[in-house]
């Protein structure tokens, strides 16, 4: 549900082409060999959660500088701190609001 909401929001930014991934492993698979401008991930995902995904991306030479937005659960300060410590550039707390997602993505990609 949240993925659908985020995709909905990101489709409002005409400059972006959105690629969806089912979980962290799928995300890493899709990242490999392609160039992406930004990653937006939930902290709660099956198989590989958002925090592990952030860690994996930051240790991957090809994508270590890609901006990452993490959606944290229930505004947990611990999750937010961990996400930022691992290298996420920004976080968004639930409930998800499309304008919030759009604003963060624009800010990190320096879009008008």
């Amino acid at each position: 549900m949240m993925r659908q909401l985020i995709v909905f929001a990101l489709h409002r930014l005409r400059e972006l082409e959105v690629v969806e991934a089912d979980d962290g492993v799928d995300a890493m698979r899709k990242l490999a060999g392609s160039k992406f401008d930004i990653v937006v991930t939930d902290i709660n995902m099956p198989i590989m959660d958002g925090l592990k995904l952030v860690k994996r991306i930051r240790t991957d030479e090809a994508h270590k500088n890609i901006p990452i937005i993490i959606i944290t659960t229930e505004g947990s300060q611990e999750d937010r701190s961990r996400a930022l410590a691992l290298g996420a550039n920004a976080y968004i707390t639930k409930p998800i609001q499309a304008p919030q997602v759009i604003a963060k993505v624009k800010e990190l990609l320096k879009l008008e």
Partner: protein
Amino acid sequence: MDEKTSSTPPPSQADITRERESFVRNFLRKGVEFTEELLRENDELRRHAQLLERDNAELRAQVKSDDAMRDVLRTIERLEQEKRNLLDRSSQLEQATRRYEGRYAAIEQELNDLANLYVASFQLHSTLKPPHVLQHIRELLAQLVGAECFVVYVLNDDGKLAIPVGSEGVAESELTPVRVGEGAIGSVCASGQSSVKQGNPLGEGSLGAPLAVLPMLVDGQTVGVIAIIRLLEQKEAWVQVDQELFHLLGAHAAAALLAAHLYQKEPDLLSALAGLSESLK
């Protein structure tokens, strides 16, 4: 007297000549003096005329300068009027911009709300497996409404008890059936009317006094209720779209649960479709 006069000797020719010459000299001298005086006056007049000409030129320049000044003043006045017009126009445009910005923000909000409602509706009806429908109701409550603690109840087959079937943030030991008509949750089961606490901040509710109790209805009949006990820390009050989400949950969650429940009794999709065409006639 004649005798006396006649006694004065007549002037001699020489005297007459001298007297004549003296007269002529006097006459000539006076003529010269007169001429010199005339020349002086002439010079004086010429100087005066030059002064007048200079004054005249200055006056003429002054007049020209005054005309130019008047032109400049007229131009300034015209420019000031244009400036006033532009300022008026700018002010009108600013007001229009503010109106459009307000409208744009409202449309953005409506679009966002509609997206939330669309996603919620889509998710509720995207599956025919009761646990999945329940999972979507939980996600909807957590991710769209921002509920941290909530319980989903479904009425039992005699309609007298509301049985907890799903929850978040509530201890297992607290999840007990609720008698229809009793307490805040039981009352909503009986009436089919939602009960939503208002306030900002809303604070924390309890199972005895939830922040919201929402009936799930099919054809106006209560199938179950959703009790929201607490919101996420960062959400202090309801927002506009929450009311819409409550309506949507009330109208769609029960239908989705019921459809999924009925469908699971069928061995396959075609069996579920049996008789549908007849019932649509």
